């Protein structure tokens, strides 16, 4: 048995590698007794797959998952619009679907010939004397896929001839509709028995083809009650369901305890006003945004210790890396009174002095010392409402993952001995940008900081530029050789009073530039898979990473930090 969650990351990396775009995957719950007939399904941008697939003697569950996502993604790439069902009978719908499957596969094979080896083993239908429409459709699927495979049934042979004869039209989805309608009519005339309600698409890796049809006014009803796939009734998305969360109550108690009201409105300092860049007028709007520092709500600091406990393996691995980071940076200290080697330059100078009759400088040794890290890091967390979204397959929220990751990072930074602060922000229009400090530079990373981290919650919007300016101001007061703002965000800048997306993006870019002028580096870790569109605009070409898999955030963040500061 192969579980979807074991292979999800491999599959999504695979799809990104093939098509260069983000295709979302999720799993639907199993229904009893329908194992053999479960098919994947496409809904919008999502490919929904069964929660598990059995391994068999000749192929693994992973191979089936891989074949399924490759096929479904070919639909997403090449079935450019959904077909209307108007005027088509069920046999025609089934035939059009089968031809469209063959068409998108043919197009995918043009780009990736190796996919033939992936899909081929699943096409094993042989003529067995039965002339049901379902059997003929399965034979049609095979004959259209395997160019060298012959099937002498007149209808199958005709379909093959027509399809292969129109290779120049394979680019055009309406080919499937034309050919399918025609052949569906022929099939009806053969009076082959067909029950659309129990028809299961063959071979097993193909999706149920619901995603390529537009059922008009009844669209939603039909999708809900999808009968002709084995996943009937149970096709509820399991990922965002609240029921899953309940099962992990132990982990999310703190989260629920700190609701939106946990944000104190108590102001810690007078409001600070910041300029904001308006790209339309090409200048800064003076004192445009108001930032208020609020007290952070406290949670239970044991929660953070539990996080470390739960990730013991990772903490140990990070510990080793930290040790390496502390000792691995040797630096040659020249001109020492004593040391393990002679300093060639100093020795030569000394000899020159001796020959010249002068007193030589006795500091002629080299010793190996350790490089001092002189670094101040401000971790800035985006605490907007969207961080409360659940992460598919992880049974937890973005915020919870960010909290775990921050706890692990803080633990690492504390061990390394770097000076660091953890701040967070959210906004409610330009007059109310909220900013709170979970740990400040001069405060120890102890119980108080941990309980504040445990109490953090997400709400409102993301006015990134103002928060970055404030973080820059905080860092500017520090004395350190290198200063870094590490921003962790799950989406692009947005706020309720701005409707032009570019406005806040360009303001954030300006804030990053201003910080850089103060000698402060800004690095962004984005959790938004679509972030490529805007992050490089804000942070420059190299100062960002999009995390490929949210569940790995706690693992990635400390390692990213070490790579950045190595």
């Amino acid at each position, binding site marked *: 048995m192969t579980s979807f969650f074991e292979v999800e990351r491999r599959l999504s990396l695979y799809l990104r590698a093939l098509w260069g775009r983000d295709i979302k995957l999720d799993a639907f719950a199993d229904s009893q007794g329908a194992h053999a007939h479960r098919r994947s399904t496409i809904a919008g941008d999502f490919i929904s797959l069964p929660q598990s697939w059995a391994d068999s003697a000749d192929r693994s569950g992973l191979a089936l998952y891989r074949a399924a996502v*490759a096929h479904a993604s070919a639909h997403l790439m090449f079935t450019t619009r959904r077909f209307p069902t108007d005027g088509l009978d069920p046999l025609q719908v089934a035939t059009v679907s089968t031809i469209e499957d063959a068409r998108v596969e043919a197009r995918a094979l043009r780009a990736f010939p190796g996919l033939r080896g992936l899909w081929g083993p699943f096409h094993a239908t042989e003529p067995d004397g039965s002339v049901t429409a379902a059997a003929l459709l399965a034979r049609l699927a095979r004959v259209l896929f395997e160019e060298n495979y012959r099937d002498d049934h007149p209808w199958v042979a005709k379909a093959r001839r027509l399809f292969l004869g129109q290779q120049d039209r394979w680019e055009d989805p309406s080919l499937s509709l034309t050919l399918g309608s025609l052949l569906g009519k022929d099939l009806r005339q053969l009076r082959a028995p067909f029950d659309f309600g129990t028809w299961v698409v063959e071979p097993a890796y193909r999706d149920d083809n619901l995603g390529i049809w537009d059922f008009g006014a009844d669209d939603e009803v039909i999708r809900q009650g999808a009968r002709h796939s084995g996943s009937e009734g149970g096709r509820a998305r399991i990922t965002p369901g609240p029921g899953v969360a309940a099962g992990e109550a132990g982990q999310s108690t703190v989260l629920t305890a700190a609701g939106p009201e946990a944000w104190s409105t108590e102001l810690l300092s007078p409001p600070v006003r910041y300029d904001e860049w308006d790209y339309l007028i090409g200048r800064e709007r003076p004192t445009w945004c108001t930032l208020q520092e609020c007290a952070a709500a406290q949670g239970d600091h044991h929660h953070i210790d539990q996080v470390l406990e739960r990730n013991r393996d990772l903490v140990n691995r990070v510990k080793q890396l930290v040790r390496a980071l502390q000792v691995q940076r040797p630096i040659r200290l020249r001109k020492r009174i004593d040391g393990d080697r002679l300093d060639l330059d100093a020795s030569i100078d000394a000899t020159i002095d001796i020959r010249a009759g002068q007193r030589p400088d006795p500091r002629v040794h080299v010793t190996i010392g350790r490089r001092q890290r002189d670094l101040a890091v401000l971790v800035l967390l985006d605490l907007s409402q969207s961080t409360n979204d659940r992460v598919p397959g992880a049974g937890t929220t973005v915020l919870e993952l960010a909290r775990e990751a921050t706890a692990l990072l803080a633990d690492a930074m504390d061990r390394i001995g770097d000076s660091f602060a953890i701040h967070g922000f959210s906004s409610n229009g330009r007059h109310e940008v909220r900013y709170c400090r979970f740990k400040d530079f001069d405060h120890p990373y102890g119980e108080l900081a941990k309980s504040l981290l445990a109490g953090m919650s997400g709400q409102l919007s993301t006015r990134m530029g103002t928060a970055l300016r404030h973080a820059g101001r905080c860092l500017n007061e520090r004395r350190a050789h290198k200063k870094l703002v590490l921003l962790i965000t799950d989406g692009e800048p947005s706020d309720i009073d701005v409707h032009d997306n570019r406005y806040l993006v360009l303001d954030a870019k300006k804030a990053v530039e201003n910080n850089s002028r103060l000698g402060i580096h800004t690095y962004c870790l984005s959790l938004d898979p679509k972030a490529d569109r805007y992050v490089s605009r804000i942070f420059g070409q190299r100062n960002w*990473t999009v995390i*490929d898999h949210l569940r790995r955030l706690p693992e990635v963040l400390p390692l990213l930090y070490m790579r950045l500061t190595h």
Partner: protein
Amino acid sequence: MNPKDTHGAAGTHSAVRQYVVGRKPYYRPVADEVRLYEAAYAARLPMMLKGPTGCGKTRFIEYMAWKLGKPLVTLACNEDMTAADLVGRYLLDADGTRWMDGPLTLAARFGAICYLDEIVEARQDTTVVIHPLTDARRVLPLERKNELVHAHPDFQLAISWNPGYQSVLKDLKQSTRQRFGALDFSYPPREIEIEIVAHESGVDLQSAGRLVSIAERSRNLKGHGLEEGMSTRMLIHAGALIAQGIEPMTACEVALIRPITDDADMRDALAAAAHACF
């Protein structure tokens, strides 16, 4: 030593003759970089070659040195490098001390192209020694020797760096950056990359095309679990293995997938994507 003291067919001074690029290096121009570099050289403008690892920066500069008929002094920078490693130092010999020019001084004195590879690896206090050579002065003060070297008319400075290299502690100072003209290097367009891989590794065009397809797949994953996509250089290595008779998928495993990542899921996804291309 007098800069005018040159001899030899190419008019190259004997001190830098060993740096002359003898055989024509293979370089396949992608855009108008050759014309731009020639113009930059004619104006003796210091140049910066930016781009990811393995995309042809070093090969380009070798080709340009050959084309311009100038010796090429290459220096791979590292963080232990001192200014003395660049400009030179006194050595002892039987009669007393002897000054030994460093590679930068050598190039400046006798008219070579000096190429500092991966300049950001050097410490910032080291890189400032190139400043007086890269503006209108074109001089190199040798403080210890109390000499001011006026750069030979043929001298030019070129540096390379990889802007994708992610460490906030390593960056080029503005005062250094702004002395250079820059050429952006990237992986060549598909058809040209196929041609390069086929030429350099000896595989046929079809195999080269597949290797390039695999590289394109990996470049889709840059920033999503991979730091860099597969470079043209890696493809040439894979092609060379195939040309030696290694089975193509095995060659891809050895030369492409295993070196680029240790992440098991990523390796699996890359291997599956590579399969899709064959």
